């Protein structure tokens, strides 16, 4: 996992539309600057370094005429929590959706714990839990029924439902239809569905949206648990403060390529939030390297 950028440069695929060379080349210097700092902290947490939690090699994805991803190469080690940042349309969600097998990459390849997302989707689906933008719930079913449906689909015993509801603080509303829920409650229920399985890779797409402080703490607790069990997480976020000290690394995407990739504390805390709103994103290349 340590040589992930080197892999990306070598791994040029025959897919003609991928243009990985320049973007990867651009982020290499920043990477080099951080690696010395990052190595010890990561090594401490890794229980099993043989199989990466996720490897993304030169992945591209086209939607109609639009290229959402234009050659992304990343690797996530077991026990690693990676934040993904970037403007709207920079390809963050697309990257998560590819790892979750919701969509197939146009070019390149990706593996989750050694299973290929295109060739072994069923295996990948067994280890990945994806919290999408959308609630992904059925409005006319109650909270409990929604989870029971998920249990049936996952092949999990119904006995898991009450403790999970308890955990996300919806035990009292278990019998009410989701239609009556607030956005935050729906979000909690979506999170509850992820807890039914024991995921090894958590994919969270803006998980802090609609959550109150208690909800945010809950999300972080779940991430820590997965990490503690040797799993990994990828979190798309706009506000890094919610994640606290959870992030080991932050990857910034811009227009479908990796702009920067480095340990979370160094890419900047307070300044980042102002930079995120800066439309002249290009200054970040210089800013990140400085």
């Amino acid at each position: 996992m340590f040589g992930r950028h080197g892999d990306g440069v070598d791994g040029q695929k025959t897919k003609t539309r991928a243009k990985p060379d320049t973007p990867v080349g651009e982020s290499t210097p920043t990477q080099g600057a951080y690696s010395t700092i990052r190595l010890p902290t990561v090594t401490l947490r890794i229980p099993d370094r043989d199989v990466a939690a996720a490897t993304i090699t030169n992945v591209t994805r086209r939607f109609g005429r639009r290229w959402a991803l234009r050659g992304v190469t990343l690797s996530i080690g077991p026990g690693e929590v990676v934040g993904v940042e970037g403007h709207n349309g920079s390809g963050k969600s697309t990257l998560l959706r590819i790892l979750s097998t919701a969509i197939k990459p146009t070019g390149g390849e990706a593996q989750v714990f050694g299973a290929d997302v295109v060739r072994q989707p069923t295996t990948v689906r067994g280890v990945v839990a994806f919290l999408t933008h959308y609630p992904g719930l059925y409005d006319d079913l109650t909270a409990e029924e929604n989870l029971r449906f998920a249990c049936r689909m996952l092949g999990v015993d119904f006995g898991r439902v009450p403790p999970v509801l308890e955990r996300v603080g919806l035990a009292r509303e278990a019998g009410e239809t989701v239609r009556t829920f607030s956005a935050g409650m729906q979000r909690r229920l979506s999170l509850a569905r992820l807890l039914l399985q024991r995921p090894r890779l958590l994919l969270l797409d803006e998980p802090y949206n609609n959550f109150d402080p208690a909800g945010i703490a809950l999300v972080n607790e779940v991430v820590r648990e997965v990490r503690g069990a040797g799993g990994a997480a990828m979190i798309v976020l706009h506000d890094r403060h919610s994640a606290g000290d959870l992030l080991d690394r932050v990857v910034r995407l811009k227009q479908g390529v990796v702009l920067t990739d480095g340990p979370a504390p160094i890419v900047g805390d307070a300044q980042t939030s102002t930079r995120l709103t800066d439309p002249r994103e290009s200054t970040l290349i210089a800013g990140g390297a400085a």
Partner: protein
Amino acid sequence: MTWRDEWRRVQAIVWKDLTTERRSKAGINAVVFMGVLILLLFGFALGPDTEALRAAAAGALWLAILFSGVLAFNRSYQLELDGGALESLLLYPGSRWAIYVGKLIANLVFVLIVEAIVIPVALVLYQVALPPGWPALIGVTVLGTVGFVTLGTFYAAMSSRSRAREVLLPLLLFPMLIPVLLSAVEASTSLLGGDPMLEAGAWVRLLGAFDIIFLVASLLAFEYVIEV
């Protein structure tokens, strides 16, 4: 994945779709109302002559079923699209055909319930007396409905996610259903008349062949349709 796992998923989807449908009764009420309305309109269009109505009964009934039933298929996917549930549904481990079969069975139950109300109304409105061979009529109705729902569930997976979905589904579906319409109407008409020429058997076989061919084809092709 074993067959038992897949069957469990099929059951879960059937249960989920039917529970949702039961909670929002608006759907089935509207569809039944539509079916009865079409029967009534045919009555007006064909005139009050009882003989003419009786002769056209099977045809009018099947058109009422097709035009009202087609409203149900897009709804079945709409409920997946509303809260972004389709993506979550596709991310559960398991085969895609289980999703298709689940939706197919739920839609089949839905359309059969609609028929259970619309058919008696048709018999009353068009003054058709049930012939002694009425169980065979039910068999023809079920076979025709299976063909209708098989293709309807398949094409709605596309139309519900395209532009102009209300128009697209009938445009794709109805030309494909002409063999079903012909066999169901001809078989029912001849059964209602006591099947003097023994024609119904051939039509029933055609209907059965249609059902099997398109059930298999849809099962195989569904994966390609739902995944993009």
